[in-house]
């Protein structure tokens, strides 16, 4: 009987350790950001003006809302309201989709304006190149995490539908939710660093 071996605290502990490694992975990038900001303050200021605050703010709202829905989904499952939980998870995944679509338009606008790696626009000065280089790398890495997080939540939905994740045994969903909050948290730092830096 596998149930008998469930170690709820152990699973949570392992998840927190994993989240720690994710923070360190982004930490390396934030470190690069800090050093280059120190080196090229004027170019970072100028670069920040190029980015659309409306898009960025909209995406921030979208992600924070999605964190809220995923938290509600966990509470709903714990209260045994499976249908509500599934609906809230679906809403979270939709919000993730909205975020990525926004991101797509944002990136494609930038690229249309000639801001992409190797373009003459980006090669104006070293600082500008670095600002947009970091922008693409860091928001790209974050976007990848959004996709992974949405996949994890979709997997949770499948497990709930199968009855493998239930009101009594909700560890998987809780861990999926934790991951989603991390994705949100990273964005909370990325948004001011790129969009509000000017």
């Amino acid at each position: 009987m596998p149930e008998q071996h469930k170690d709820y605290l152990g699973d949570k502990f392992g998840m927190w350790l994993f989240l720690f490694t994710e923070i360190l992975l982004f930490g390396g990038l934030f470190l690069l950001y800090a050093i280059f900001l120190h080196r090229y303050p004027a170019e970072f200021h100028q670069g920040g003006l190029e980015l659309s605050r409306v898009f960025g703010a909209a995406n921030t709202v979208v992600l924070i809302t999605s964190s809220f829905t995923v938290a509600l989904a966990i509470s709903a499952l714990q209260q045994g309201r499976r249908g509500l939980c599934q609906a809230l998870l679906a809403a979270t995944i939709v919000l993730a989709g909205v975020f990525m679509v926004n991101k797509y338009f944002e990136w494609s606008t930038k690229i249309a304006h000639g801001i992409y790696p190797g373009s003459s626009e980006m090669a104006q000065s070293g600082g500008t190149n670095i600002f947009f280089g970091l922008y693409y790398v860091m928001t790209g890495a974050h976007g990848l995490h959004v996709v992974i997080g949405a996949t994890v939540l979709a997997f949770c939905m499948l497990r709930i539908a199968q009855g493998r994740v239930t009101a009594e045994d909700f560890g998987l969903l809780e861990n999926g939710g934790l991951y989603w909050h991390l994705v949100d948290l990273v964005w909370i730092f990325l948004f001011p660093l790129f969009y509000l830096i000017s």
Partner: protein
Amino acid sequence: MPSPGETVPFLDPLPGRSGLTSWIFSTDHKRIGMLYLWCILTMFAVGVVIGVLMRLELIAPGRTIMGAQTYNAMFTLHGVVMIFLFVIPGIPAAFGNILLPLQIGAEDVSFPRLNIFSWWLYLTGAVLAVTSLFTGGGPPDTGWTFYVPFSERTTTNVSLAVVAVFILGFSSILTGLNFITTIHRLRAPKMSWGKLPLFVWSLYATAWIQLLATPVLGVTVALVFIERLLGIGLFDPAKGGDPLLYQHLFWIYSHPAVYIMIVPAMGVVSDIIPAFARKSIFGYKAIAVSSLAIAFAGSLVWAHHMFTSGMSDTAVLVFSFLTFVVAIPSAVKVFNWVATLYKGSIHLEPPLLFALGFIFLFSAGGLTGLVLGSAGTDIHVHDTYFVVAHFHYVIFGGTGFGLFAAMHFWFPKIFGRMYDRKLANASWYLLVGGFNMLYFPMFLIGLMGMPRRYYDYLPMYQTGHIISTVGSWVLVAGLVTMFWGLSKCLRGPRTVGRNPWGAATLEWTLPSPPPHLTFLDPPDEVPSPYSYAGVKRDA
């Protein structure tokens, strides 16, 4: 009535479940450990062959058996294979997997499926690393450190190699995560922290380094990949980037990784020495705490690899000081091992011989590390053969001999058979002799100025190179003897009892080899791991 899983040795198939799939999809920590063991030994063989070929090339100045570009690829691969595929996963992933749950009285690790997944990641990384040799623009020629800007510009297959390193890093993180959770959550109820075997303590410290340092390497090599693919230029001075930042990020992982390599070997030695001195370990707490101290202090010294890279003098001074600090917990261990041997009732069996080899060679490597850690002398010996000798003394003399000691110590437990002790002893003499002959001359030619990674050299260094190359042949003879002595006994009846050495940790209370399922119920009594009163040998 016990189930077959509780009686059938884990090396033998269970009824209805046999063949390759019962291994490569197994979630049993012992079988996963064995998978790692075979893989790392294969990779070790590859690394040794490359190393011997390089030594052969260097026997005379100028071209001997290969061209300069081939030589560059060879030393890159020797580094990548030995570091990422052999030494880092070596003791923790192979012996840690097999022994950690047994030593703490647990049924398995916390996340068994994650455990086999990390092995699959390891295998994927290994296959990609080997594939990078034969595809793309030829084998990578950057050295295992992938220093920019060269690694971004060379046309060789660096991209695939860094992807392999990224995946291997993922594997390492998941193993570390698994071990930390296991040690916190799955110790037998009576297995308090003060009763953990020192090998477990060393795995615990190692797992934290794996967890905390590897993600930074992951993102760094990922950046090299992205820069090669898209040309963003974060590390490229022509595009506003800074190559020094690459070195910082690379060494933030790769220096602590040195302790991922050595700390588990220290744990092995800490378990072996008291068992063959028939005497409780001297300074249990000091050894346990020093593992954590090494893990902590070792995370703060990375920039000592960069004294000549153009850092400020203040940074050089601080990192030089911190580097000396790491020597303290390392020396604490050495003194405690020697104190354990003092007035012990010593049984000079092969595991103890290898452990003593470890102490001697590691001490030589560690002390020469101080020469390198001191900024003034480092300027003179930086990137010379002195460095090559230093890290081979630490990593091969330390971790390698630690692994050999572990193989001879736990071989009877894993296989239920005893190896040929005469061959094991003979191989030890060949290995220690060959090792010193191979690497000691490198200290001397290094001090004379022979640069590392050079394909060619001035005639003044030739004597050193000849001695060194001949030493490599002796060393290989030792390796062949050792593996022959171990493997010739792999067939035949299993005759070894539960506890051939009379050791006191929990794995020796199990049959040899242990059955598929162990410690379904945690052990009632957990003795002190190094208290030998009343422990009977069962050969």
